[in-house]
């Protein structure tokens, strides 16, 4: 029951190091180191565990600038079997639609895959759109917010992490899943893994070698999304602390305040 799994990864600025320009409200990315989007590592871990249990192989795929090769090497160090970097200037400024389009082409070119795993969202964009859009491009089933996957005869039983509970879903492969951090704590690469990854081959494709690419659907022209404005949300009003001598008095004060605010 060998499975071919593709894991989509991207680099994001290390949010712990990021600052916001107080004047323009935009993120200052200069000099901020890149890390692999943490949820993508959960997706990779899920893939590696599935491979461990059921056999198969794992390909890490990234659309990004040349320096994203480093992220792919980290994936190889953790245990991915192969890595593909899709990199070309013409991909610059692609939104989630264009990105998903490119990744779906990669899935065709380097597949066939049984499973495509993504992080539940990226730390920088937080849209959570890429996974579902890849599924749409490929016409596959999709399951989002996946916390755990168990193989069955025909596909998977999947735990979906919902607000207030877990939803169990049964689905056939091929599937696209977006993974949460609950169960799949990423492993630390071994030293030997790191050393091996330094020498490993990272397959690189560009706009010419990516099969079937319609250049009208990528980059700025292929991206219907435009950012109208980015801003830092204003600090909220500080809350009111009610601390009267007795509980009865506190309750009375609370009711008074709520009434005054016309909340009750």
């Amino acid at each position, binding site marked *: 029951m060998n499975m071919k799994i593709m894991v989509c990864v991207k680099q994001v600025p290390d949010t712990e190091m990021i600052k916001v320009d107080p004047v323009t409200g935009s993120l200052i990315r200069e000099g901020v180191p890149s890390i692999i989007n943490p949820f993508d590592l959960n997706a990779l871990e899920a893939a590696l565990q599935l491979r461990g249990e059921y056999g198969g192989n794992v390909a890490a795929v990234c659309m990004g600038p040349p320096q994203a090769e480093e992220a792919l090497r980290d994936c190889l160090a953790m245990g991915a079997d192969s890595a593909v970097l899709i990199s070309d200037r013409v991909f610059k400024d692609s939104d989630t639609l264009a990105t998903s389009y490119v990744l779906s082409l990669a899935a065709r070119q380097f597949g066939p895959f049984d499973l495509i795993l993504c992080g539940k969202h990226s730390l920088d964009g937080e849209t959570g759109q890429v996974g579902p859009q890849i599924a749409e491009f490929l016409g596959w089933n999709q399951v989002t917010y996946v916390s755990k996957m168990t193989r069955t005869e025909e596909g998977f039983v999947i735990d979906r992490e919902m607000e207030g509970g877990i939803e169990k879903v049964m689905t056939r492969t091929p599937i696209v899943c977006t993974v949460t951090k609950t169960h799949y704590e990423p492993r*630390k690469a*071994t*030293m*030997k893994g*790191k*050393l091996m990854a*330094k020498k490993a081959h990272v397959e690189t494709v560009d706009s010419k070698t990516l099969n079937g690419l319609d250049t009208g659907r990528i980059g700025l022209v292929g991206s219907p999304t435009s950012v109208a404005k980015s801003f830092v949300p204003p600090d909220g009003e500080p809350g009111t602390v009610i601390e009267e001598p007795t509980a009865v008095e506190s309750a009375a004060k609370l009711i008074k305040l709520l009434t005054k605010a016309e909340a009750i």
Partner: protein
Amino acid sequence: MSDDKFDVIVVGGGIAGTVASYLLAKEGLSVVLVERGNFCGSKNMTGGRLYAYSLEEVMPGFANEAPVERKVFKERISLLTMDQSVTLDVRSPKFAESGNDSYVVLRSSFDRWLGEKAESEGAMIVAGYRVDDLIVRDDKVCGIISNGEEMDADVVVLADGVNSLLAEKLGMKKPLRPEHVAVGVKEVIQLTRGEIDERFGLSGDEGCAWSFFGANTDGIQGGGFLYTNKDSISIGLTCNLQKLSEGSKPLMQLMNDFQSHPVVAPLVKGGNLIEYSAHLEPEAGAKMIPQLYGNGVLVIGDAAGLTLNLGHKVRGMDLAVISAQCAAQAILEAKSREDFTASSLRKYKDLLDVSSAIQNIEARDKYLEFMENPLLYNAYPLMIVDMLARLFVVKGGRAQTIFDDILKNIEALGKNQIENDFKAVKKL
């Protein structure tokens, strides 16, 4: 090379470890450097100044390429009392001459660069892994263990810094004793380039190195330092750990007092604290040097106790380079014989013994006792500063000659004491 065994594993990506890796990889050996921080230099600190001569030998012209902060053109020494000071300011083109030159560095960028140089020669750096233990078989070190994972090599080079727990585990080194180390604290304070140039009288890439003695360590054996970076200054204090624990003020308070001293306050004024660090420094000279070699293992850099603190000259990084050079040469020779036993690796000690590193450390040992004299850190600076201050005071009445003044001070301190100390100086 088999896939599982390397010629050399170097533990620690400081100056010593990166330079050793560079030299060995350059000669075609398979080298893995394991560093516990996220990159070489990420955890390292120094006061600030690298004397260039030894690294220059390893990488000629390194300063043109490396991320050095400023080249030292100006040396200052200050003696401080609580509210007075005497400062010597020496500026000389000699400082810049090749061979004499020295550079202020920040380790996180400098060591990282050295690591990249080693990598460009083929060394492989694994960062983010702490070496927990060494593999020892039949009394020979055969590799390292990190997080349960083993990795084998013919030789392991311990470049893991002043508190080399690994050398200790092997029984090559005794645990550190508080009287044998100084503890240093350092702050990096951000200022604009212009502010630095103006406050220190510098221009372009010129830098200033400044040491401070006296009240800033509250009479404790040690001193203060200040180095100018491009757009920040490195300022700190070092104190003997034992003496500090006997003293009345914690190091942090000494540091605060130091920075509020009238000489220092205007230098740091308005700056933005961007980095704080603390580190130990070996300071007991030759008696701290551990067993330097064993079967399949060498100890270099601070791990080997190789520092030289003369107060106004603090040296460790240049000696780390020398020890890396000696170690690399010894390993290459051992490799040509395929003999990595202690008797083969002994060559390292032989080379080091005749190097300027050990010779200077041994020469300094004569000063050690002298430098422990507490009067050096309180009474003498006070006396000198006081006398010089009085030299400039005019207040009417019959003026005292400077000799009267000196005599009075000597009497105050006790003639015997001074005589003894003077004898000690003559002995040096």
